[in-house]
């Protein structure tokens, strides 16, 4: 059994003249990061709204929030990706649908991917936001109300700032999940990190070098996000509240 290793493949010029294979992976990393970041903005804002809706008194708002979360959680992400990419333009009014279909290549896959991942992740963020608000002592809401704040102000100035601090660690892992999930955009043709490793492998037949390169970049990305999250946690920690990281984590 023989496999011809050839690590110098990374520096050889790709056959399509677009630079070396390392450049291909690097560009893939760029698409992965930008897709994940934009989707994260969408996920955080939508997730906060839906999560808050599920903690309000209104039965209607609660119900809408629950349906939203159930809808996105119970359909495989791959199927959702296809719905955004293939099905949505067909269901739009003709003119708008045609306009979407005529978008130039990378963007025609990029935007559906951002929306798909953003909405999918927002349903998971919503669950975290709800849990975070639920974890706050009931007295906080009452105290806010007693101070004369309107419900919106109670959320804006009292509940959400603390809730977001509590859920920072799970939000970090949701963001890491989101980065991993961007790989599914490869199925609609976005050449993100996994996709570029795959295309590099198809051109050069150096399967394991290509995947090893992508693997290392994913590890690298993971590490950076975890370090940044820890810095952020320390930066926003409220002195005397929950004693930061030291008290969390079992044993």
């Amino acid at each position, binding site marked *: 059994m023989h496999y011809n290793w050839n690590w110098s493949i990374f520096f050889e010029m790709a056959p399509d003249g677009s630079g070396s294979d390392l450049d291909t992976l690097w560009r893939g990393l760029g698409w992965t990061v930008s897709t994940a970041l934009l989707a994260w903005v969408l996920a955080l804002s939508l997730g906060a709204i839906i999560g808050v809706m599920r903690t309000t008194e209104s039965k209607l708002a609660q119900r809408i929030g629950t349906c939203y979360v159930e809808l996105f959680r119970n359909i495989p992400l791959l199927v959702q990706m296809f719905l955004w990419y293939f099905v949505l333009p067909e269901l739009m009014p003709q003119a708008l649908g045609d306009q979407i279909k005529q978008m130039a290549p990378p963007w025609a896959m990029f935007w559906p991917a951002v929306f798909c991942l953003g909405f999918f992740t927002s349903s998971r963020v919503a669950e975290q936001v709800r849990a975070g608000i639920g974890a706050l002592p009931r007295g906080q809401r009452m105290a806010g109300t007693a101070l004369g704040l309107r419900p919106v102000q109670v959320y804006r100035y009292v509940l959400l700032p603390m809730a977001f601090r509590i859920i920072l660690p799970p939000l970090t892992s949701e963001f890491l999940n989101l980065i991993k999930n961007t790989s599914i955009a490869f199925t609609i043709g976005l050449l993100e990190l996994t996709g570029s490793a795959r295309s590099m492998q198809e051109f050069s037949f150096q399967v394991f070098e290509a*995947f090893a390169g992508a693997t290392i970049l994913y590890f690298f990305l993971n590490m950076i996000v975890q370090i940044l999250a820890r810095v952020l946690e320390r930066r926003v920690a409220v002195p005397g509240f929950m004693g930061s990281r030291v008290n969390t984590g079992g044993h």
Partner: protein
Amino acid sequence: MNNGFDWDVIVRTAPYLFRDGMVFTLQLTVLSAVGGLILGTILAMMRLSSNRLLNGIGTAYVTGLRALPLLLVIFWFYFLVPYIGAWVTGASRPLTVGGFTSALITFTLFEAAYYCEIMRAGIQSIARGQVAAGQALGLNYFQVMGNVILPQAFRNMMPVLLTQTIVLFQDTSLVYVLSLTDFMGAAAKVAQRDGRLVEMYLFAAAVYFVICFVASRLVRRLQHRMAIIR
């Protein structure tokens, strides 16, 4: 939509979708859930062991796999398994491995990392005194684990394990990238052959939704029932 929603294509291809596709999906889900759970439990025991080497291997395996997208892992194993197979059997050329086998190996190894973390939490949820009690009775490590700790850990974690299995069921749709005919793969094949993307993908979404929604409701009911018993 040019010529309306074509219900007929769904009715016509439903036998193919369910008999070929869904059976494949369910087989893959059940087999890799069982395999993943067994391997995951072993990994959890390794991660909780005081042996530095076992602990290190378990931790590296789990954190490594959990940092990678499933799609990349699917590709890794799709190309790697023939070489590993050749190495194990001593063959001089990479073995030809069927798509189902390759997917089964991938999902088992990948899900093990996730089941491991659940089982680890489950084992840790059992009072340490039980280990001491078991040892005082003269049981060895494997007897304590097998007869005392694991049955309880397994029971406590049942809802979480089942929820993870629903996620696995959804994730099996990714074998689409290997052109295998799971439920989603079958739907995609018909969609492309007949040019009926809207109908087939909406139908696939609806089927997945109903199955996962019902399953997660059942898991929640189980959770409530267990909460009362304990």
